[in-house]
């Protein structure tokens, strides 16, 4: 449904154009990094720490070095001279943030997580390198692990000796209209809620593990890094700095990239090692990550303890919010590790009106686990989860329907553009409309009616319905806002539009797609702008020799920043073409109209010149206006004036079996509003995938560590990425509220599904069990976890018949029940097998 009239009917934008990326990917023609033929390449393999925290006593590499095919073996000490700087962290969130220097191989005699790189082997084949790793003998003195965030903060075990503490930083965002406003609001509140939620660690699990190949040109002085990365441009800058290579001699190429979800938004040890070792040996060095390595050596997501307090008046209108977070940094800071909780810091008031009474504080802590970093949504799913779960608690306390409570608090559409308590301006929104549409699609009232008859005393199949309304806050970002957050880079994006002599068009973008279909979408934007067919447009990207400047793809920024830059570059091309057309037609440029790919003199429809003719004129340069450069191309670097603020409402309907704790998702409805949709087919795909990742956090996924700091879910046999049979068919609706901040009216959409999904699912599960006294169910809501929550709530109830000791359980115990006894689920572990 369309709320606001979209821009005038466009030829291509808004159609479900099939993706031009697909044929190569469907036929095996596309080349991922591991597919690249690189003659003469040596292979890297790493010996990694089997301990969460240990001192390295000795390293014996002699046996490995003597093995067939082994070319060299290096310890951290051997490579100390290879690094001009430690591994980069681009987000020093506070002046006094602690950032322990770390290097691609353990360099200070200690390891700080299972998977920390210790020794590098270079060999003539992948198998020879891996065989040699097995022969490396490292003697460790194990030290206590620090797995629990609150215990880690108590510093009983200090991970980085030189810091003297595990505390990384405390970052506060307190906004009060008047001093003491928050405290006063809580004192005066008719209702308050105080809740604690745990955002479990997640493994991003892009289907393509990381892969790298560094190809040096010993006599040319250059080096090319092929990497399965989301950020070729940032990687170029960062590897140049870290290795001390002049930046102009580094080229980074991201070939076909098999998903990222934030996990490939980083500068990794293996990238630096391949580059350093290829320069040392003067031959290409490559590395292919195994899935088990991926689980340990690629960043993890989430990892927060959230304490949220809401104050509300008698009607349930929010009057103040207080949040205390503990952020799990893992063992070291990767590229944007410390900034992830901050990205959510502005979103704990959700889509609701709030006076200037907001008190957010995050303390982050080092642990002996894999570093965390951005994972789909990065801070925003966590924030949305907390506010949306807490809103349901408030609704319960008030005895008000959760949807009704949201309606009372929604920022009204008349208030847009809306200046929030934080000073941030939300661009456009109509939350009530999206919620109404979602309720209609989910038959909200019907489900509520069915609940009354189904969830009776003693019922073991209980129906629940959960609502979640969200903001995405994406399109990173206005550079000055990033500066205010101490982020070390800008948020602009580049585009070049080049009309070739035969009127075919090359678009060069600084975005780096890895599944999002930018080639298709950007060609659609250009097609409408220039009035030509998308088939006549090529989109080039992800190679710093072709697209030298860019800030890559993450944070749902590509369309609202990069796509808008493409549109702006088209405008510049049209402006230039107009000068040529005016010259050729002997008309005043102001009298020319451009439509349908041709310039026409106003009032003289016979006086017309197609873009094709102008393109050729620009090429021959025989008859151009004086002083005009002979080309028809334009470059734009666009720094957005604002974030973009997609929003929507998701509704999930579940049935919970109270005997087994199994959750059956009966229906999932998502109504998302990302402004104008360039290609609805692609938008829907983004939403589908996002929802299932959020749903998977709610029901299935958790990086489980034991007390010694071993990751027990380090393969896809143990870590429950859902299969097709684990997830429901999805019902999508959408509203369309164009963004007023850019000419396309677009907003981002890559993370919306993930942000909306987890709270909708858990709200539904808790709703189903609310009659049993259950107020919260932690994620992932595995059958065992749900069953435990039911029985804990029922412990005070004399009628409770279970009488079973729930007992202390480690996560793995929970995992074994997660499959629900469904042996046909491919990725359940042994506990589910018959």
């Amino acid at each position, binding site marked *: 449904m369309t709320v606001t009239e979209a821009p005038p009917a466009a030829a291509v934008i808004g159609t479900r154009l*099939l*993706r031009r990326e*697909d*044929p*190569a*990917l*469907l*036929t*095996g*023609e*596309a080349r*991922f990094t591991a*597919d690249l033929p690189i*003659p003469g*390449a*040596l292979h890297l393999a790493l010996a990694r720490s089997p301990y969460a925290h240990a001192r390295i006593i000795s390293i014996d*590499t002699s046996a490995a070095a003597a*093995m*067939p*095919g082994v*070319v*060299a*073996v*290096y*310890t951290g000490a*051997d490579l100390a001279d290879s690094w001009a700087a430690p591994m980069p962290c681009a987000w020093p969130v506070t002046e006094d943030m602690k950032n322990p220097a770390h290097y691609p191989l353990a360099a200070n005699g200690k390891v700080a997580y299972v998977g920390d790189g210790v020794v590098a082997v270079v060999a*003539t*084949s992948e*198998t020879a390198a891996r*065989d040699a790793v097995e022969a490396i003998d490292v003697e460790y003195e194990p030290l206590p692990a620090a797995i629990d965030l609150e215990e880690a903060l108590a510093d009983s075990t200090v991970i980085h000796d030189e810091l003297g503490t595990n505390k990384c930083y405390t970052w506060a965002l307190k906004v009060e209209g008047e001093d003491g406003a928050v405290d006063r609001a809580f004192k005066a509140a008719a209702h308050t809620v105080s809740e604690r939620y745990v955002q479990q660690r997640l493994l991003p699990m892009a*289907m*393509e*593990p990381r892969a790298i190949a560094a190809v040096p040109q010993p006599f040319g002085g250059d080096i090319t890094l092929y990497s399965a990365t989301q950020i070729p441009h940032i990687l170029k800058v960062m590897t140049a700095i870290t290795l001390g290579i002049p930046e102009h001699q580094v080229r980074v190429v991201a070939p076909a*990239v*098999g*998903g990222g*979800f934030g996990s490939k938004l980083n500068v990794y040890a293996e990238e630096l090692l391949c580059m350093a070792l290829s320069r040392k040996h003067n*031959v290409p060095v490559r590395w292919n990550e*195994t*899935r*088990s390595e991926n689980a340990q050596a690629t960043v993890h997501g989430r990892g927060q303890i959230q304490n949220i307090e809401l104050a509300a008046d008698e009607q349930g209108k929010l009057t103040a919010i207080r949040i205390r977070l503990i952020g799990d940094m893992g063992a070291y800071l990767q590229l944007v590790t410390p900034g992830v909780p901050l990205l959510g810091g502005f979103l704990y008031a959700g889509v609701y009106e709030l006076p200037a009474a907001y008190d957010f504080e995050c303390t982050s802590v080092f642990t002996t686990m894999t570093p965390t970093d951005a994972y789909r949504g990065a801070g925003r799913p966590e924030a949305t989860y907390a506010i949306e779960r807490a809103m349901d608690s408030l609704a319960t306390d008030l005895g008000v329907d959760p949807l009704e409570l949201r309606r009372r608090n929604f920022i009204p559409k008349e208030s847009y553009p809306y200046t929030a308590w934080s000073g941030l301006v939300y661009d456009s929104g109509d939350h009530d409309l999206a919620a109404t549409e979602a309720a209609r699609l989910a038959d909200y009232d019907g489900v509520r009616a069915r609940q009354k008859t189904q969830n009776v005393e003693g019922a073991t199949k209980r129906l629940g319905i959960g609502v979640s309304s969200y903001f995405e806050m994406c399109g990173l970002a206005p550079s000055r806002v990033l500066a205010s957050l101490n982020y070390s880079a800008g948020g602009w994006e580049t585009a070049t539009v080049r009309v070739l002599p035969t009127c075919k068009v090359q678009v060069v973008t600084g975005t780096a797609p890895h599944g*999002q*279909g930018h080639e298709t979408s950007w060609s659609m934007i250009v097609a409408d702008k220039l009035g030509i067919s998308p088939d006549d447009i090529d989109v080039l990207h992800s190679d710093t020799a072709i697209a030298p400047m860019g800030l890559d793809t993450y944070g749902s920024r590509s369309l609202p920043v990069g796509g808008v830059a493409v549109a702006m570059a088209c405008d510049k091309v049209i402006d230039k073409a107009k000068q040529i057309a005016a010259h050729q037609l002997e008309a005043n440029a102001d009298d020319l109209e451009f439509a349908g790919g041709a310039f026409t003199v106003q009032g003289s429809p016979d006086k017309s010149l197609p873009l094709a003719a102008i393109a050729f004129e620009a090429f021959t340069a025989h008859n151009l206006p004086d002083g005009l450069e002979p080309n028809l191309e334009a470059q734009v670097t666009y720094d957005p004036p604002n974030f973009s603020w997609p929003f929507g409402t998701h509704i999930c309907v579940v049935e919970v079996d109270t005997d087994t704790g199994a959750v059956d998702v009966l229906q999932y409805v998502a109504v998302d509003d990302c402004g104008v949709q360039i290609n609805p*087919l692609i938008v*829907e*795909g983004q939403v*589908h*995938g*996002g929802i*299932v*990742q959020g749903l998977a956090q709610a029901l299935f996924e958790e990086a489980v560590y034991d007390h010694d700091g071993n990751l027990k879910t380090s393969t896809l046999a143990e870590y429950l*990425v859902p*299969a*097709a*049979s684990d*997830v429901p*068919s999805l019902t999508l609706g959408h509203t369309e509220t164009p963004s007023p901040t850019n000419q396309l009216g677009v907003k981002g959409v890559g993370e919306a599904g993930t942000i909306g999904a987890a709270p909708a699912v858990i709200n539904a599960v808790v709703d189903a069990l609310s009659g049993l006294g259950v107020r919260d169910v932690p994620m992932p809501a595995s059958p065992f976890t749900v069953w435990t929550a039911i029985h804990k709530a029922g412990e005070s109830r004399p009628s409770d018949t279970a009488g079973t000791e729930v007992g202390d359980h480690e996560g793995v115990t929970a995992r074994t029940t997660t499959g629900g006894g469904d042996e*046909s689920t*491919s*990725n359940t572990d042994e506990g589910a097998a018959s």
Partner: protein
Amino acid sequence: MRPVGFVRAMMGAAWGHSTPKGAPNVEISVTVNGSAHTHDVEPRTLLVQYIREQVGLTGTNIGCDTSSCGACTIHIDGESVKSCTVLAVQADGADLTTIEGLAKDGELHPMQQAFMENHGLQCGYCTPGMVMAAISLLDEQPSPSEQEVREGLEGNLCRCTGYHNIVKAILAAASAKA
């Protein structure tokens, strides 16, 4: 340990695989997408490694090390198999079809076409295995229900699509075939 130098690096690189002592290579002959191939392989070489590294067809992807993800699914004598679960030597004499063998004369296979028309892929990494599994699924169940498609795909993981459009693509391919 110090690096042993440039010359050895260059020589070693030219020879490709290492062969541990006591594990002589074995000669195998297979047909891949209609072409005959004969190679010496290490006994421990997985079929997927053989296809990628010795036959040189890299469309078959590796997504895990526990036979969980299905990215490497191919057809062996017409049946879908995760090619990481089979040793190359076990495939001696077999007729293999990989993702590269589906499109004919510049036309996508109907299943590939259905995936494209229904946006059943995003990053494309699971896609070759997913398409091979889907073809096999319809061979066994020509008119599956949505639930049967979902259950039939349990061995193949996708992280991008949420499966929604993959399921839709396979149901569309089934309808088109009927």
